[in-house]
Every structure is written in C-alpha cells, then in structure tokens.
C-alpha cells in the first residue's frame, strides 16, 4: 500500500515536470532548417524608397500587386546564401506585371550595394531604406529577411533568415490566388 502511494505521489509530482518539458520542447526549433516564418498582421507601410537607378517607389502605390521585399546587405553572408533562391523566384515571377520584387539595402553603403547589384548582377531592383524606416515598420530584426505582401497590402509571409524557393514560391502563389 505504501509503495502504491509513493508511486502515485511520484507520478503526480512528475506530471507538471513532464508538461513543462513538453512546453519547452514545443518552443524550440528542431531540424537543420535555419529559417523561421513569422505570423504577422502588418501591412506594407506607405513609405517612398529610392531605387539605385534613381527611380522612386512609393510602397503604398503597389496595391493590387504581390510584393516580395528582401532586406539584405553586401556584408551579410547568409544573404548571399539565399541569392540562388531569390534568383529562382525572379525566374518564375519576374516577368509578371502583378508581382514586384524589391531588394532593400539594410545598414550598408548604397554605393557598395549598387556596385554589387551591377556586378553580380542582381536582376531585381534594389533600393535604399533610409533610417531603416521600412524595416522597422515591418518588424525586421536583422538580415536576411523576406516578406511577401498580398495585393491588399497585408503582409502574408515573413521569413527570418535565408529564404528558400520551397518556402517563397508557394507563398507568392497563394498571394496571387487571393483577391485582386
């Protein structure tokens, strides 16, 4: 009888410990995938950015199009890692009128970024983000980060870390299928 009671007490004591460990385990990421996709309720801010070719782009005027925003810098190694995935995204969607892809330079010299974009070359347009105002408005914490914005301006996908085509392509497709 005593042994049974002891076992019951032990079991009752272990339940919260097991629950706590399960909760901790659920909060940590497993696997080798370095990226995290964040749920968001943010909208594309109405900020005007200037492309390295001098063209001004009012982000608010992009309503009706699916926008892919990639925050990057030339000093950022993971940004170079994700470049093939972004090239694949551009290959698939770059010729569409209803998809806009824009690289936003994060804490980097615009001159250096422009030289890199010319020499690489990057096929998608690149713009400055003075004071990181667009980055902060979209909750960006570092680079690389890539966001997919639906036609209505709602951010529908936010990748923290190097993006992959496996992740971005379906997100863009879903955004394109949404209301226009």
């Amino acid at each position, binding site marked *: 009888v005593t042994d049974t009671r002891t076992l019951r007490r032990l079991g009752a004591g272990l339940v919260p410990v097991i629950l706590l460990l399960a909760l901790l385990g659920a909060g940590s990421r497993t696997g080798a995938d370095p990226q995290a996709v964040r749920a968001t309720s943010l909208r594309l801010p109405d900020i005007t950015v200037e492309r390295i070719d001098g063209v001004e782009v009012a982000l608010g005027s992009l309503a009706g199009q699916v926008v892919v925003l990639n925050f990057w810098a030339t000093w950022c190694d993971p940004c170079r890692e994700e470049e093939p995935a972004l090239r694949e995204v551009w290959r698939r969607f770059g010729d569409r009128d209803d998809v806009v892809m824009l690289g936003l330079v*994060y*804490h980097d010299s615009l001159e250096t970024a422009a030289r890199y974009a010319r020499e690489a070359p990057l096929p998608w347009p690149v713009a400055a983000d003075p*004071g*990181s*105002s667009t*980055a*902060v*408005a979209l*909750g960006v914490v*570092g680079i690389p980060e890539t966001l997919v914005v639906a036609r209505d301006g709602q951010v529908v996908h936010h990748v923290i870390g190097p993006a992959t085509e496996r992740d971005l392509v379906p997100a863009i497709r879903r955004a394109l299928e949404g209301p226009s």
Partner: protein
Amino acid sequence: VTPRGAITLAAALMLVVFALLVAATRAPAVDLDGRTLALARELRCPVCGGTSVADSPSMVAADMRSAIRAQLAEGRSPDEVKAWFAERYGEDTILTPRNAASGWAIRLVPFAAVAVAATVAWRALAPRRARAEP
C-alpha cells in the same frame, strides 16, 4: 528632543531625501532627445535578451531609437509609440506596463512617502501629551 525622537527625525529626513530622489528620476523629460531616451528605456531590444533599446548597441535598437524619435516628433504619445512597437515586435517588447493606472500609482509613491515622513516628523517633534492619570 529625546534620542529616540532624533533617530525618528533622521529617519524621516532620509525618507524625504529618498522620495525626492525617486521623484527626480521619475520626472518626465521635456526635450525630444530626453523623451526618446526615456521611452527607449521602456522598450526591449528584440535581439539582445533583456537589454533595453536605449542601452543596446545593436542595429535594430538604433533603428528603433530613430523611429521613437520620429514618432514623438510627430506628436504621438508614449503609449501610442509603445503600442506601435508591440504590434511589430510583440507585446514582450514593452518593459514597463502601458496601463495608465499603474503609471499614476508609481508617480504617487514619492508624494505618499513625503506624507508619511511629514507625519512621523510631526509626531517626533510635537510636545508629548501629559498622560492622564488613572
């Protein structure tokens, strides 16, 4: 004044000094830079653990300080700015409660301390009442 009264008076004076110090540190900054710094102290840097936006040398913290300054300059209230950051970086970005009631409670602490100290000092200095004979 009796030795006991002197000790009480000294304690009351220390309480007043403490209350004044608390009031000084809680006094709202008037200029834009001061208000920016004060608000940056109330927000957590999203990439540096428990460090505030004011104390963090990270790039995102620098960007957040610029955004705080710009929004205060536009006339937004500190609570509005905090809500704006909470929407972007999560509710745990806020280091201090946004609840106005608790803010007022904190501001009332120095006044309450002065009132207590004054009462203690008045009692210590007041002539002792003659005890009624049974």
